[in-house]
């Protein structure tokens, strides 16, 4: 009778050890894989050719020594972002021209791009250049465009471009909020469209 009322307790002391073993197993097998990256579009296989003024092209080249050249001049790779910023935001078209860019804050030099929509960045590279240099260049190009877009987004909607994208992804599908945010993003994108060409240039 006494035994039935008080059955011996099961020792749970080893529970922690078993849990630890399982924990370590899952710790080891887990790979918190990231899917972060830079999204780009490749050039179309047989794209039509277009005639472009030389002033609207920024030629960036990565040579076999992993050096970055802009318009055949060696530059420090850290300066690339600012060079791209100046080039895209130049807005060199005259005030009576149809391409006049009223929101540009650049130097309005007649030797640089007419307007952000006309500005094309040409990126070429040597086969012996290293991939991390290439990715750094791509990263800086996107960085330059994103900071321009953020500037315009703050000016127009008092919200930064990255926050705008975040809000868009958070908003409920098919809600009027989402539609509004989408049109805002599209407006900003159309102000500074990313035009990076990796095609061969025919001079």
């Amino acid at each position: 009778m006494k035994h039935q009322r008080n059955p011996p307790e099961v020792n749970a002391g080893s529970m922690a050890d078993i849990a630890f073993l399982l924990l370590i197993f899952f710790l080891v097998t887990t790979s918190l894989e990231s899917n972060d990256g830079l999204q780009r579009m490749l050039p179309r296989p047989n794209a039509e050719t277009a005639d472009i003024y030389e002033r609207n092209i920024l030629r960036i080249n990565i040579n076999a020594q992993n050096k970055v050249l802009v318009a055949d001049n060696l530059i420090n790779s850290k300066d690339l972002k600012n060079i791209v910023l100046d080039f895209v935001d130049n807005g060199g078209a005259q005030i009576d021209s149809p391409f006049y860019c009223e929101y540009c804050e650049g130097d309005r030099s007649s030797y640089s791009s007419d307007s952000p929509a006309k500005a094309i960045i040409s990126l070429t590279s040597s086969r012996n250049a290293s991939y991390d240099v290439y990715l750094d260049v791509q990263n800086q190009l996107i960085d330059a465009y994103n900071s321009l877009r953020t500037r315009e987004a703050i000016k127009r909607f008092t919200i930064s471009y990255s926050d705008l994208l975040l809000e868009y992804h958070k908003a409920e599908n098919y809600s009027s909020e989402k539609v509004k945010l989408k049109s805002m993003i599209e407006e900003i994108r159309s102000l500074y469209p990313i035009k990076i060409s990796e095609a061969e240039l025919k001079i």
Partner: protein
Amino acid sequence: MKFKTKKSNSSLPPVSTASLPDIVFILLFFFMTVTVFKDQNLLVENTIPMANQAEKFAKVGVIEIIIGKPLDNYQANYGTEPVLQLGNKIGGVHDVSAFVLEELSLMPEHLRAKATVNLKIDENVKLGIVNDVKKTLSKINMLKVNYIALKK
């Protein structure tokens, strides 16, 4: 003096470890839920470069191509020059279009138009092979690529 302090310490009640299993279990469940068993092993070296503008992308409709030097135990067969890992096999640039088109055919129909190619490229790879892969992809009209990078 030393002896005395020791004695006063031992008179403190011991820290209870009764909640330890619970904490461990919580951690265990966390890792159990986030674990994804990999269906492929890395056959090539793959140190992904950093980029501070990297964004997160959905993992649907993704075809993965890994580029890097073969790992040590594969170097006898595949040499030390960078190669492509396509699924669970090591291949060359000429295998890309067949692999991508096969992966594409396995995808549900509504994802095919949105399919993206994730390029996981080791930072020491030379651009030549990368450019060849890009050219092949553009030939078969897979224009959306995603250069995988670690966010700084």
